[in-house]
């Protein structure tokens, strides 16, 4: 994967766009509270890691951020737009890599991307150019004609990442995108998304894997539907490792 992602993000370093903010957001499944009045802000042009063990509420939060669920309480702003008042503007501003694979396995890589581009109103020559650029950036240009079914897990994820960047979003949401990948693929994707953040994209990256978080990342620790810590990873951890810090906080919160 190439380090310079300007053609996909449409921005350069030091040129951040509005980020993402959540205020007083709650959500319940029946009687069970999945998110309890959480609030945080992802600074523009930063990599924000949302770290939490399984069942912390990360997927619920992502379902709310992507408007698959809605909540009567709280407020979500994405790329300068209020998700409940201007959902189309907010959705247009975000690129999403879901935890579940969302490629159509019977279609080729290019067909998958063309379909997605059209859902965002991009077609014809513009779509072809953007697809070529994004695939090139992610080292997938040679696989454009392969069916998604024939790709390995790492290449499928790269395709999904290329797809999420096609419409040049200002905010990138990644919900545990490295699940099931080998170490090399995982590292390549984590590095690339860090590079995207360095070039101005606001990134919210949900994970339960501490080695995906760097010490200068913005870190949110989510546990049992509540934000336990919000700040620079190095400041939250002090001298300890991120893994030790997570264990200490979640055991204390249990």
């Amino acid at each position, binding site marked *: 994967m190439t380090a310079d992602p300007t053609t996909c993000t449409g921005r350069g370093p030091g040129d951040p766009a509005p980020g993402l903010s959540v205020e007083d957001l709650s959500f319940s*499944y029946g009687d*069970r509270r999945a998110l309890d009045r959480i609030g945080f802000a992802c600074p523009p042009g930063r990599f924000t890691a949302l770290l939490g063990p399984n069942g912390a509420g990360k997927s619920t939060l992502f379902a709310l951020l992507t*408007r*698959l*669920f809605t909540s009567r309480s709280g407020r979500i702003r994405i790329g300068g737009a209020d998700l409940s008042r201007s959902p*189309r503007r907010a959705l247009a501003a975000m690129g999403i890599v879901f935890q579940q694979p*969302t490629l159509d396995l*019977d279609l080729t890589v290019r067909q998958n991307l063309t379909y997605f581009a*059209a859902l965002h109103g991009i077609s014809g020559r513009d779509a072809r150019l953007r697809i070529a650029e994004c695939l090139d950036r992610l080292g997938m240009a040679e696989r454009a004609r392969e069916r998604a079914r024939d790709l390995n897990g790492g290449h499928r994820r790269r395709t999904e990442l290329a797809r999420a960047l096609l419409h040049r979003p200002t905010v990138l949401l990644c919900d545990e995108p490295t699940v099931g990948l080998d170490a090399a693929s995982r590292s390549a994707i984590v590095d690339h998304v860090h590079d995207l953040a360095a070039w101005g994209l606001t990134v919210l990256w949900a994970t339960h894997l501490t080695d995906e978080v760097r010490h200068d990342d913005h870190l949110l620790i989510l546990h049992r539907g509540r934000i336990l810590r919000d700040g620079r990873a190095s400041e939250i951890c002090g001298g300890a490792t991120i893994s030790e810090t997570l264990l200490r906080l979640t055991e204390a919160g249990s």
Partner: protein
Amino acid sequence: MTWVTALLAIVAREALRFAHQRERFLAALVRPLVWLLVFAAGFRAALGLSIIPPYQTYITYETYIVPGLCGMILLFNGMQSSLSLVYDREMGSMRLLLTAPLPRWWLLVSKLVASTAISILQVYAFLAIAWIFGIEMAAWGYVAVLPALAVSGVMLGALGLALSSFVKQLENFAGVMNFVIFPMFFLSSALYPLWKMAESSPLLRDVCTANPFTHAVELIRFALYLQFNAAALAWTGLAAAAFLAMALWGYDPARGLVRRKG
């Protein structure tokens, strides 16, 4: 323009998926052909048909059931696309669609238009094979039936869409087959005229009359004979609107797409 681009992309995707699933196309054709060439041949002698509108002369039983079998293709396809929607939801591609920056109702209507277009193609393939076997309609009947197929296809597709929002898992789909497809098909005028049904049970005739599938079949039947059945159109249209409203409610984000704990 964005809306039209998205609609065309959704239709193109359905068409591509369909092209990759030749077995599905064959199955969709074989089912009504078995009814036409085997069942109808056997029942021809057993069932006497009187002259009822839109027919102006005695017809063979094979001719009678052709509109019902067109309806059958639309019905099975509506359910099939519903099944694929549940699959899409489980596989995640539904998420991709629902997070597109377009109104959700438009995305769902686009999905409906796409599945109806595929169904109509299959109906025409069936009508062509029926024609080869000597069951011919008036030439303009093949044109006139197109809007009737579209309305009926949208109605049955909307039913499938509504069901897909309530059916939680693929495994539950057998229940849909038992409780939706079979009663809808058999309790209709697809295989026997309603007056024939009334001879054995007036209650069953009333149930058949209330079944929107009956009206879809009659709409198709009349259109094939270049006649317009306003009542059938009104009932089919009303049912389509009701099923679509249910589907939109079912996919309302306030209800949650899949309220899984996570």
